[in-house]
């Protein structure tokens, strides 16, 4: 793991459980149909509290990235790349993850999420969609 163990909250615990089953889920508001990520109890569009999980392909486009060159987290090997991905399923949703491209990311390139097991935790990295 490049960083800290994730600490799910009551809004997000099921999201992490689904990730552990290799299912990338977003929430769809039952009131207005807007999809959202990350997991929250309220819809920011209509303030509704009714929603359901929706499994989507972990796909998006690279919006930016950094190359961490100093160990911001103790004990982690540098350099490593973190990408900021705008999710195809949620236009307002940004996901972060480590880059597994074998080269620098490119602005706007299509990427897909790949699951990584770290002990008993599953994380989502990103690689070129090809």
């Amino acid at each position, binding site marked *: 793991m490049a960083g800290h163990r994730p600490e799910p909250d009551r809004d997000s615990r099921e999201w992490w459980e689904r990730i552990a089953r290799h299912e990338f889920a977003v929430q769809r508001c039952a009131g207005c149909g807007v999809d959202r990520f990350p997991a929250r109890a309220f819809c920011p569009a209509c303030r509704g509290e009714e929603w359901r999980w929706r499994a989507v392909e972990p796909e998006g486009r690279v919006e930016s990235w950094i190359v*961490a060159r100093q160990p911001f987290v103790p004990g982690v090997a540098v350099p490593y790349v973190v990408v900021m991905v705008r999710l195809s399923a949620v236009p307002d949703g*940004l996901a972060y993850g480590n880059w597994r491209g074998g080269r620098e990311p490119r602005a706007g390139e299509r990427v897909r999420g790949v699951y990584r097991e770290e002990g008993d935790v599953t994380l989502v990295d990103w690689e070129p969609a090809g």
Partner: protein
Amino acid sequence: MPKRLLDFRDATAIAGVGYTPFSKNSGVSTLTLACRAVLAALDDAGLSAADVDGLATHRVGDSAPPTLVGPALGLTGLSWHLDQFGGGSVSHAVVGQAALAVAAGMAETVVCYRAINARSEFRMGGTGRGLPVSPEVQYQAPYGYVAPPQQYAMYARAHMLRYGTTAEHFGALAVTQRANAVKNPRALMRTPITLEDYLASRWIAEPFRLLDCCLETDGACAVVVTTAERARALRRPPVLISAAAWGGGQSHLSGAAGDPTVTAAAELAPRLYAQAGLGPADVDVAEIYDCFTYSVVVQLEDYGFCPKGEGGPYVASGATALDGPLPVNTHGGFLSEGYVHGVNHIAEAVSQLRGEAGDRQVPGAEVALSTAQPGYVLPATSALILRRA
């Protein structure tokens, strides 16, 4: 603009500023730093501790609250205080709220301070401290994405990709501000640097190099807010608070992520300028929150000094130098003077408007803008427009 705004413009003033020395290791507690800065600001104003009836600060668990500073200085009968949870995005809101309290008659003399051992105890940008309290963190920290230099670097690259902003643009800002720090006896870094020095400085988080990042500093800074009328009777030339604005706006949290190259300042700026009855063309000097080079570039755009996307070329043109049309961070800023989480920017604006900035004085400075962290870490920012009385 709110419809029922108190007639606030120029009703209050900053009557004094105070500093502790800036260092890499203060050797004293944040409580001691806070007390020293508060007393220094009162002394500057020609006031005593007995005159204080309000205290205000902002902090993220790393400083001394008013409930400690008041008793430590024997301040009794405080009628107003504020202990604002928050980092640099609320640094100017604290002064704005103090000004509102004074304008409303809740208090007459409020000292706003920030004390921080950011180098020797609490590394904002480093390792080994607890993670910020935010549900966002769980989606980021497992990937080693935890620190402000990384977050700002991410947004800086987005700006570079969108607008062609370059490392040389960021470097021009770092070089320009260092040139100002050379003329500032208080500054921690006073060795001139060149663009080559900038480009040769080590990587922190690409696209940021060491010289893109502010100096974590031990120190404290304070300002005294009182009524404009009272300030006129005190020791120093009063500096009027013409406008104070704060609030939310453009979000960059992952659930509502708009354009990453626009900050909350873009929404705040029109409200701020309207309150002052002034515009960007009226600003003589700007002290702009420079936690990183990029934060200045994007705010120059969002506060209307140049078109969107042209902040880099604007800086590289020399516009923000001491002899340019918009001198920016005349003290060297957080990049070279030191990092007191927003308050030293306010204090420098006051020095400039009082005509007391020494070798770095901007001739005839009458109107200053000073800004907070523009809202990248949280969707909130704040700013002040100050005016020579």
